[in-house]
C-alpha cells in the first residue's frame, strides 16, 4: 500500500501538476498575447527608436528617463520541458513565447507611460534582462526581469 502511495506521489502528482500548469499557463499566455496585440495596435504610431540622437529636424522641449519593467517566471510545464530539452540541447521552444511576452510587455509599459505623461516619442530605447536569484540555488529559476529604458521627449515641432 505504501508503495502505491509513493507511486502516486512520485508520478501522479508531478503529472497532475504538469497538466494543470499547462492548461492554466496556456490560458494566461493566450490572454496576455491578446492584450499585447491590442495595446501594440493602439501604440502603433507612437515613435520609439534605438538611436541615441533625435532626428536633426526635431526640437525637444522636455526629456525624461522612462523605465518599463516586468518580471516573468516559468510555469511548471515550461520548466520541465525546458529541463528535458537541456539534456539534449536545441531551441528551448517553451521559453520563447514567455520571453517574447516579457519583451513586448516591458516595451508597452515604457511607451504607455510616456504617452500618458504627454510625451511624443521615446529615443535611445534599450532592453535589458537580469536573472532573479532562487533560494534553492541552481535548481530552477525564480524569474527574469525584462527592463526597457529610453528617453521620452516632448517635441516643440514635429
Amino acid at each position, binding site marked *: 500500500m505504501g*508503495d*502505491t502511495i*509513493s*507511486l502516486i*506521489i*512520485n*508520478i501522479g502528482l*508531478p503529472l497532475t501538476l504538469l497538466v494543470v500548469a*499547462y492548461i492554466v499557463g*496556456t490560458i494566461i499566455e493566450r490572454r496576455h498575447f491578446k492584450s499585447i*496585440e491590442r495595446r*501594440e*495596435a493602439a501604440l*502603433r*504610431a507612437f*515613435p520609439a527608436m534605438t538611436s541615441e540622437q533625435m*532626428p536633426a*529636424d526635431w526640437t525637444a522641449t522636455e526629456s525624461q528617463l522612462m523605465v518599463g519593467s516586468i518580471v516573468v517566471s516559468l510555469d511548471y*510545464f*515550461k*520548466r*520541465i*520541458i525546458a*529541463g*528535458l*530539452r*537541456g*539534456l*539534449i540541447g536545441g*531551441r528551448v*521552444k*517553451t521559453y*520563447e*513565447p514567455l*520571453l*517574447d511576452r516579457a*519583451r*513586448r510587455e516591458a516595451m508597452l509599459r515604457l511607451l504607455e507611460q510616456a504617452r500618458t505623461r504627454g510625451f511624443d516619442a521615446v529615443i535611445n530605447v534599450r532592453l535589458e534582462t537580469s536573472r532573479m536569484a532562487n533560494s534553492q540555488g541552481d*535548481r*530552477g529559476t525564480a524569474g527574469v526581469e525584462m527592463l526597457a529604458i529610453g528617453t521620452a521627449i516632448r517635441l516643440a515641432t*514635429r
Partner: protein
Amino acid sequence: MSESRGRFVARQPDPSVNVSDTHPLAEAGVLFAGLGAVFIAVVIISVYLVDILVGVVSIEREAQWFGGLRYDEIGELMEGARITTDHAQHEQTVALLETLTEYWPDSTYEFRLLIAESSVPNAVALPGGTIIVTSRLLDDVESENELAFVLAHELGHFHGRDHLRRLGRLALISLIYNATIGAGGFAPNLSDLSLRSFDRQQERDADRFGLELCAAHYGHVAGTGDFFRRLDPGSRSVVNRYVDTHPGMTERLADMTAIAAEQGWPETGPLRPWNEPTTMDAQP
C-alpha cells in the same frame, strides 16, 4: 517627421519571428518519448553492466566491504528495529540455517544470523552474508519447514548475489538519474521503480533455490508456502504488480507449485514442529 523624407507609415513588427510555431505539447511528446526510451535503455544496460561487475567481486571482497556492519547500522536499515542475538530461538534458528547450508556446499559465505525485534514478520539478506529474521517471524512460524523455506529463500538471494546486484543497480541508476532528469525536479523514485521487475525475477529465482534446499533436506516441499499463504492480501491491482518488489503471493505460490511439480518434489509430507520442545536442539 519631415515630409521631405517621405511618408512614414507605422507598422507593427511581425511578432512570430521570435516564437517557434511548434506546439508545446508536440515538443513535450517528442522529448518525453525520446528521453523515456533512452532512460529505459540506460536502465537495461546498467542492469547488465552491474551483473558483469558483480561477477568480478569475490565473496571474500563482499564480506570485507559489508560483513562488518554493526548492529545499529543494520537496525537503521530495518526501520530502527533493535538487532540482537539474544532471543530464545536464536540458536535453534542458526542450527537450522547451518543444516540448510550443508545442501549448498559451494558456498564460501560465512553466514551471520541476527534477529530484529519487530512486529512485522520478515526476513532480509544483507550484503556480506548477514541474514536478519524478525522476532515476529519466529513467533509466527507454524513449522520448521516453513522457517526453513524462508531461510533457504534468503540463501537463494546470496546464491544469486541479488543484494549486491540490487545495490549496484540502484547506485548506478541513481547516479545517472540524478545527473540528468533528477535536476529537472522529477520523482527520484522512478529509477527505483523501473528496477522492480528485475527484483521480482530475483525473488522467483530465490524461491526456486529455497525449494531446492528444502526438498533436499526434507525430501518434500510441504509447508514451504505457509508464510506467503498467511500474508496473502488477496488480488493485486495492476499498479501494485508494477510497484511491488516481490511477486504477488498468489502468483508466487502458483510458481512454487509449478516448480515443485516440474522437479518432482512431493508437495505433501510430515511437517517438523517449531517452537515446541520436541526437537533435539530445543531450548531447556
